[in-house]
């Protein structure tokens, strides 16, 4: 489980995050949503140690990440898988080498063992037999899937997905969403998805936090988010005419 307590982050005089407290549960898809510029990416960076919060705690299994020394932080980071918005695959490495990278760095496995694990992960994301392709030869959706394979190669306890659907068509988005959900349940991972894609929220969101102007404005499940009367949430969720019409129809029914 990951718990954040009173996280604040300022850049100079600008306070981006204000006293955010939230719990992310294992085996659940925990979602952070919010408008662009609301601070969700900054929060995710604070959670994985890419940005140090101005105040507050990030607890991994009860251990405060920021009270640890560098070596201890590295050990926690080895338990984190991260899917980046643009996949962040290493350009100069093949698909196989990308997925194998964490294994080469942090295990003493033989090449055979590593290849077995890589093939397992690639099969899990439906990317088998693509081992020798380079990232430049892959489509956006394929890159995301390789990114997920790399993220789960070390059997992580925690999986962060930053905008996993950005730049993908609706069908591929659903595939990626389902894959994230399946992996979360299958390996009992604490998954944190950062998104502003409402389809993802409705599809896989189990524990949702809505960030508004740097604050934890609302939290709940996917059923709650549809029914809530919170104005800011409604403005966000039903921003499109389509969603508004859908809401009106549902209300009519």
């Amino acid at each position, binding site marked *: 489980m990951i718990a954040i307590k009173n996280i604040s982050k300022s850049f100079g005089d600008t306070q981006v995050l204000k006293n955010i407290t939230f719990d992310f549960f294992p085996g659940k898809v925990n979602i952070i949503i919010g408008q662009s510029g609301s601070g969700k990416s900054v929060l995710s960076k604070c959670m994985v*140690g890419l940005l140090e919060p101005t105040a507050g705690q990030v607890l991994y299994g009860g251990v405060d990440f920021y009270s640890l020394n560098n070596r201890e932080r*590295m*050990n926690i*980071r080895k338990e984190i898988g*991260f899917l980046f918005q643009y996949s*962040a695959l*290493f350009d100069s490495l093949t698909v196989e080498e990308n997925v194998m990278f964490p294994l080469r*760095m*942090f295990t003493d496995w033989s090449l055979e063992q590593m290849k077995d694990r890589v093939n397992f992960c690639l099969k899990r994301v439906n990317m088998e037999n693509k081992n020798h392709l380079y990232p430049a030869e892959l489509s956006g959706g394929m890159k995301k899937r390789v990114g997920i394979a790399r993220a789960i190669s070390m059997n992580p306890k925690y999986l962060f997905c930053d905008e996993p659907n950005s730049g993908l068509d609706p069908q591929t988005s659903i595939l990626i969403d389902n894959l994230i959900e399946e992996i979360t349940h299958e390996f009992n991972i604490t998954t944190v998805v950062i998104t502003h894609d409402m389809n993802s929220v409705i599809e896989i969101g189990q524990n949702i936090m809505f960030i508004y102007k740097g604050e934890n404005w609302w939290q709940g499940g996917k059923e709650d988010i549809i029914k809530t009367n919170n104005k800011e949430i409604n403005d966000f969720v039903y921003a499109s005419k389509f969603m508004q019409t859908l809401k009106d129809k549902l209300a009519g029914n």
Partner: protein
Amino acid sequence: MQSFFYEIGKFWLFIRLVFRKPEKAKVYYQRFLDECVAIGINSLGIVSIMSLFIGAVITLQTAYNIDSPWIPLYTVGFTARQSIILEFSPTIISLILAGIVGSKISSEIGTMRISEQLDALDIMGVNSAAFMVLPKIFGAIFMFPFIIIISMFLGLMGGFIFGVITGAVSEYEYVYGIQYWFNPYSVQYALTKTVAFAFIITTISSYFGYYVSGGSVEVGKASTKGVVVSSILILLANYQLTQWLLL
């Protein structure tokens, strides 16, 4: 002035980060070998061509400017040797390498920064600064002296071939000239400078690439900055090292 000291402080913190203990020596060793090829072997072509022709030009110009019967013609070989070993190969070739290798390093690391590949390394628990930069530093420190020795040899060969073909100097006079009053310490001096220049080129270019923020335009700017700053530092270090090592 404040930003100058800020950059210096940030640079030394970066160096401290780079020289942290590697996570896995075996992987770093493999990266070191890759960098030896990328930085060293891949620069050999242009360095060889330049050395051959600059050696030829130094020889021809020296011969052309010696028109006194009191100055022996072996002076041509002697002057070519001194110019090539003391300055051309270690300093000018290093300046060229600052352009070739330095811009490659800055743009490679800068692109990795803006495409979040460095963040990916950090999140995995890999020290991205050490992983990317340490093998480059050692690769350059290991390979540059070989490149410079090859450059010295080819420079002297270029002088010999073109000097003899054009009749500017005879085979015997040139060979006698390049052996005349030879002090092996001059090679040691040149290679010591080369190691210092290798360190400057790799660390400065990596530093500018590592802290890029923005997009491709910023990567280009970082690459240019890396080349300019490392070239200036090479010239300053050249002066300082010459004072320390020769005087």
